[in-house]
């Protein structure tokens, strides 16, 4: 069984935002909701680096632990999904998430939140696979088609990797060996409780 993970190689990320618009395009995500974004540190300074961030589909996802209605679940592939029919938009998951992944559409003028939205790893949601309902609530289900998340597939520099954890770890490790240095797989320790292992 595959264990799906994301890995952003900061040596390659050029903050081109292809991942961000690919996500918008694939799922027709509305203005104001950003399932994926690129974060830059040391902007304009020597040592500037960017990483593309979204829900990392954590092992032992903290959002799941705090959800009062148990709407968040993990699939057999290790993808963390949720059921919008159950979600009450309480925002607990946002506070629990170390990556700032959960998003909420704003409803009305008093900051009331709509149902949580986040990266689905292009794996849809609990509705019937490929149905109109699934698409409208969660977006496309690429995984069911044998495809990977579009953000990673379209990454300009092959910085953002998606796929089975062991395979993308291997790709990253080869790169690190080639370079002779490692800047680490950002967020892996937090999300998966482990760094990329040494080769």
């Amino acid at each position, binding site marked *: *069984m*595959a264990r799906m993970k994301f890995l952003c190689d900061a*040596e390659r990320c*050029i*903050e*081109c*935002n*292809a*991942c*961000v*618009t*690919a996500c*918008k*395009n*694939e799922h027709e995500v509305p*203005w104001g909701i*950003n399932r994926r974004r690129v974060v830059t540190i040391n902007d*304009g*300074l*020597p040592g*500037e*680096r960017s990483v593309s961030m979204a829900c990392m589909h954590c092992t032992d996802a903290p959002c799941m632990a705090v959800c009062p209605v148990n709407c968040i*679940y*993990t699939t*057999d*592939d290790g993808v963390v*999904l949720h*059921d919008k029919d159950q979600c009450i938009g309480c925002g607990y998951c946002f506070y629990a998430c170390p990556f700032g992944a959960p998003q909420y559409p704003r409803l009305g003028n008093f900051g009331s939140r709509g149902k949580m939205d986040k990266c689905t790893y292009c794996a849809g949601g*609990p509705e*019937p*696979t*490929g*149905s*109109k309902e699934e*698409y409208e609530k969660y977006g*496309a289900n*690429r*995984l*069911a*088609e*044998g*495809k*990977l998340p*579009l953000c990673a*597939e*379209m*990454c*300009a*520099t*092959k910085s953002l*990797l*998606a*796929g*089975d954890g062991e*395979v993308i770890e291997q*790709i990253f490790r080869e*790169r690190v060996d*080639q*370079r*002779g240095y490692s800047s680490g797989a950002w967020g892996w320790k937090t999300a998966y409780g482990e760094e990329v292992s040494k080769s």
Partner: protein
Amino acid sequence: MLIKRSDRPVRQTHLAAFAEGQGLARLDRRSFLRRSGLAAAGLATIGALPLANMRKARAGPPPAPGATVEIRKNVCTHCAVGCTVTAEVSNGVWIGQEPSFDSPINRGSHCAKGASVRELVHSDRRLKYPLKMVNGEWQRASWDEAISAICDKIMQIRGTSGPDSVYWLGSAKFTNEGAYLFRKLGAFWGTNNTDHQARICHSTTVTGVANTWGYGAMTNSINDMRNAKTLLYVGSNAAEAHPVAMQHMLEGKELNNANMIVVDPRMTRTAAHATDYVRLRPGTDIPFLYGLMWHIVKNGWEDKEFIQSRVYGYDDVLKEIEKWPPDEVERVTGVPGAQVEHIARLFATEKPATLIWCMGQTQHTVGTANVRTSCILLLLTGNVGKPGTGANILRGHDNVQGATDVGLDIVTLPFYYGLKDTAWKHWSRVWQVDYDWFVSRFDSKEIMEAPGIPLTRWFDAVLLPKDQVHQKDNVRAMFVQGHASNSITRIPESLKALAKLDLLVVVDPHPTTWASLSVKAGRKDGTWLLPACTQFEAKGSRVASNRSLQWGEQIVKPSFEAKDDLEIMYLVAQRLGFADKMFKNIKVENNLPEAEDILREMNRGSWSTGYCGQSPERLKLHMANQKDFDLVTLRATSGPAKGDYYGLPWPCWGKPELKHPGTALLYNTNLHVMDGGGTFRARFGVERDGVNLLASGSYSLGSEIQDGYPEFTYGVLKKLGWDHDLAPDELATIQQIGGDKADAVSWSTDLSGGIQRVAMKHGCLPYGNARARMNAFGVPDPIPVHREPIYTPRVDLVAKYPTRQDEVQFRLPNIGFSVQKSAVDRQVAKQFPLILTSGRLVEFEGGGEETRSNPWLAELQQNMFIEINPADAGERGIVNGAWVWVTGAENSSKAKVRALVTERVGKGVAWMPFHFGGWFGGEDLRPNYPEGADPIVLGESANTMTTYGYDPATGMQEPKATLCQIAAA
């Protein structure tokens, strides 16, 4: 725990079948690389996944039940990297975009723009139907009404002011077929006032590079940069301007442990990944490059053999190099001496080395001299004509190389034939229209052979006194098809011209800033907006930066009432009364000329540039078999296109039947000409002042002439005794063209292709084998010299390095010298102490109206801003994110923007992105747009602040070095 609620019937995808059929074990390193690592991971995953949830592949909104999903391939319409776009279409609707893993250029990747192109077709902010301005209001019009009213007005202007008073401003967004047709339209109309974005993009590159070694284009390819050991970026921010190119650059950098050196006034996102970053003062590229050469010559690192056999004018350049010792370089550029020496050592000794440039070099008053200096550095170190070397010039628009090649230009007919009567006669033969008829279309034979007015000066051609415009009358009508107005400098001046024009026609998917600024200028009528479709709604070929031609399929039919560019041109030609002649050999169906037929006509006339072998059939074959092409060499190793280079990068010599593979690397003597080998072009004679201009002892592999040789003519073939190799029909064509001067018929005018075929049969390049010119006699500043920007803060350097004297160029006076002198005399630099330069953001493109209308992109950059160094901001009490007023050195120009306080720019330098528009002088012009067609994001245009300055060889504008002041708003 929740699980899936349904188990739908399974239909495996081709990917799954692939994974199952071949298994991961069969996935060798090559396929692994091709599928980019990611796809391989995908396959691996699928192999391991329970396939129970597999279903028919599709993405985006689900298609209607029972509807089929078709895959169509086109090419991204944003930059010239040339990424394939794979579209899923159902019921005529573009429902999803998939990665194009098979393309050797993008391997599935896109940037923010490429990953969002589907929106461009669906956008509800497009122009939906023709509009005309009536009494200051936009009103809907029909196409019939629009075409007849516009053409009648054009004919009226022709009657009183002559054909040159109508300016035909075309587009690098056209397909090759569109750009060629637009130039042809200009020729049949009777003017050389036909231009497009290359003028403000790489016109200086084309002129500078072609005058050095023969052709004005990137010598190698983006893929070939994987071979480089040293990559020197001078004026290119590839990470934002050509993001997918960075994939090849960064992978190459990792694999070769390569030096990646970025030279730029800003520490760009490209510089963030460099091994060395050099900050120089804007406009001092020439001193920096000569500074490198000073060290190279001093240490004997130059490639002596290369220079001896393949270079002309080295001694002349040496004198100039000697003027740039380290202290003078540092005084002018601000780059420390030790850093210059370090970079010189890397570039000259860690080979192969390539020089990459973009707008940072070209968009200057000294643009042509800049790129020529870059070429000289490459020649000095022998870094041309081999893998991993070369002038890797990253072109801007998706088809700016192609539109340049097909001659949508003021200085030439298609394919660089020039404007002399020999050129006109060549095209008269190709078009099968009488030469004398063309003469009758122009005001005079003299003006027919005189370069037109550059688009950078269209407003000067409207506004200057009639006696200063060297044609019959001022420009009175602008017919603009696919060109922004805010990408042109000196917007305050253009505003005055907009008010004065008799007619303004804008043909574009969007209203553009032509519309909003024309209302601001006070136009109440005589303005038309016609909706053109995007290239995703049309078919045709476009040329990537590396000279590869890619054929795009029509993905969906044009939205709303939008029309294909080709159809619009046909309708105009028809109404103007010359459609029968113009489309004599082109099939037209329902007013739409057939793209394939137009390409075939180009094939028949484009011998000079080697566009003769790329038939539509061959291009389509390549698109259908992308997977067969090698990632690094771009050559097909199997399949029906085996042996060809991807996209048949020009020159692709001879007729299509000859199956020339295209030329992936220009001037590569290590290959046979029939394998894409080449020599420097013999374009400038055989000797000068007794000095040989032809190569000595250098020739391409398999050449029967093992030395330099001139370009081939029938006469040369006869002298060599090779004329017997001509087939009878080829000979007949040559004799028919040449008449009693058949000996003069050349490889570029022989419509039979026989001379090319025979030359190549003997292993020779049809265009000859010459030396590249370090001394480009005939070009202004044949040995490049430093000249201070017209508006420079370093007034102390102006006396020693002044700009060129005033002169009439391209029908207009270029008074740069007077402007510079006046600026120094008036001490403008005291009032405006900051250097203002400009550049790109990854999210937007060009003038930006299209991309700023796309919500997926607009959301990422919602405000126009200016980058200012913390020291400069501190002195002015400016905080990050605050509104500031930027004031400029001409026309009391001003702009209200946000401040981005950052060390990305050095002290004394400010930077603006050039994609914004729709504001002017602090005023929001949103009400000026037709209702519903205003871009989501508007902002001040950088070019409101830019100032006078034109390259003497091309009319290039100066958006990269001027002066400004910034104050808190």
